[in-house]
């Protein structure tokens, strides 16, 4: 486990292989909820939270339940159920602990169950940090950190997008491009700009 690896996971997950702009995970809420900053931020915060929690839980399940019993093929099914259960649990806890926070997150929490980013992160962690059925050294921490970073990358893309789209309200975008098309075109330019970080080497 070394600092280098963590740094490279950070740069990679946030900028180079940004979960939205490069891996295309979590696109549905990206174009639907990024019109205003407040909801965009709420969604991103919720997503980051859930990705982190699920990265940890799915890793443990894979390592101590699926692998030892040769059930690796049940990965998809078990991960999805875990995520759904996790979201329910988090929802209940937040509702109890801080009703204000619960009101802020609102329906976004439920939507996260079907957010590709969460399941995608869990699957990516396994693909990247397990080799031939054995976890690499520091696998758990790398997975957890990658989950956090993917959440951060998600937040970055959502915030930039919402800032731009709020400003776009004042622009005379051609009618055929309103809403989704122009959002994708903006994302395309953002993706091009982020390419500046390609080949990053610390």
């Amino acid at each position, binding site marked *: 486990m070394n600092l280098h690896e963590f740094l490279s996971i950070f740069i990679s997950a946030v900028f180079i292989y940004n979960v939205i702009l490069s891996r295309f995970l979590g696109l549905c809420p990206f174009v639907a909820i990024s019109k205003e900053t407040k909801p965009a931020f709420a969604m991103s915060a919720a997503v980051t939270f859930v990705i982190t929690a699920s990265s940890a839980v799915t890793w443990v399940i894979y390592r101590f339940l699926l692998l030892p019993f040769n059930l690796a093929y049940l990965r998809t099914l078990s991960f999805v159920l875990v995520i759904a259960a996790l979201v329910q649990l988090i929802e209940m806890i937040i509702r109890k602990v801080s009703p204000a926070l619960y009101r802020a997150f609102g329906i976004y929490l439920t939507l996260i169950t079907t957010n590709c980013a969460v399941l995608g992160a869990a699957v990516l962690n396994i693909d990247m940090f397990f080799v031939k059925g054995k976890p690499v050294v520091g696998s758990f921490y790398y997975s957890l950190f990658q989950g956090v970073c993917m959440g951060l990358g998600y937040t970055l893309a959502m915030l930039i997008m919402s800032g731009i789209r709020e400003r776009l309200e004042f622009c*005379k975008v051609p009618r055929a491009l309103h809403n989704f098309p122009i959002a994708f075109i903006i994302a395309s330019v953002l993706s091009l700009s982020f390419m500046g970080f390609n080949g990053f080497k610390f």
Partner: protein
Amino acid sequence: MKDKLIVSGSPHIYTRESVSRIMWTVVVSLIPAGIAGVIIFGWDALWITLAAVGAAVSTELIFELAAGKKITVLDGSAVITGILLAFNLPAGVPLWLPVIGAVVSMVVGKLLFGGLGQNIFNPALVGRVFLMASWPKYMTTFTRPFCDTVASATPLAALKEGKVLEHIPYWDLFIGNHGGCIGEVCILALLIGAAILFIKGYISWQIPVTYIVTTGLFMYVFGGNGFFKGDWLFHILSGGLILGAFFMATDYVATPLTAKGQIIFGVGCGVLTAVIRIWGGYPEGVSYAILMMNAATPFIDRYTKNRIYGS
């Protein structure tokens, strides 16, 4: 009452100078760099520039005719986009490259957003990064100055590959006697143009100065072997920094409104440029840095808005 309320993007207050006058003055200020480009790289530089400008203007014309909008090609902004795009290209590219780049610049960078005053990103840079991603071979093949058949690396590219060129004299960097893009190499010509814009009051010092100073500072601290050993003068005079800082990072529409915002913008550009130059895969980061800061501009504006009296 509702239709008396006009809500639009910035700027809201226009000086007596019309938009076209400002644009055409910018065109004039770019002429010295253009002439230098032709002297240094040959007539190809001229053809490329004309191709880009022609394509940009035609694209805008066709688009506005097809959409039934007011024809604005005479306001000079398409011409500027064409020139700036050409200045960001190596002199050896085939002529279809600037044409495609100009079309992309105009369509994706400006027209699809609603035209003049509505773009989020600097249009010329949108075209440039598109070309860079699409035809990297053409975009990174440079010719030696005064000798258009011999390939040569730019100083920054050589640095990135670890081959430190026999130390290029600063004077050569200043007048552009080295490989590079058409409009970026002759610092002298660019500064003359920038001076014209400053004198006329069309650009303010905040963005260019903070951008250049930040880059220099960062390169001084982190850019050499060990801390505080960087060759800041080399980095300020190399690559597209001067061209970018004075002519592209100063785009009225795609940059913050307030002075404070502009300083943040300049610093952001500087840091990003330096980070990419030092640790990124590309030798030059100016285009990407400016585009990323363009994307952050709505946010910067939000948090640096002038306090309205009474609120």
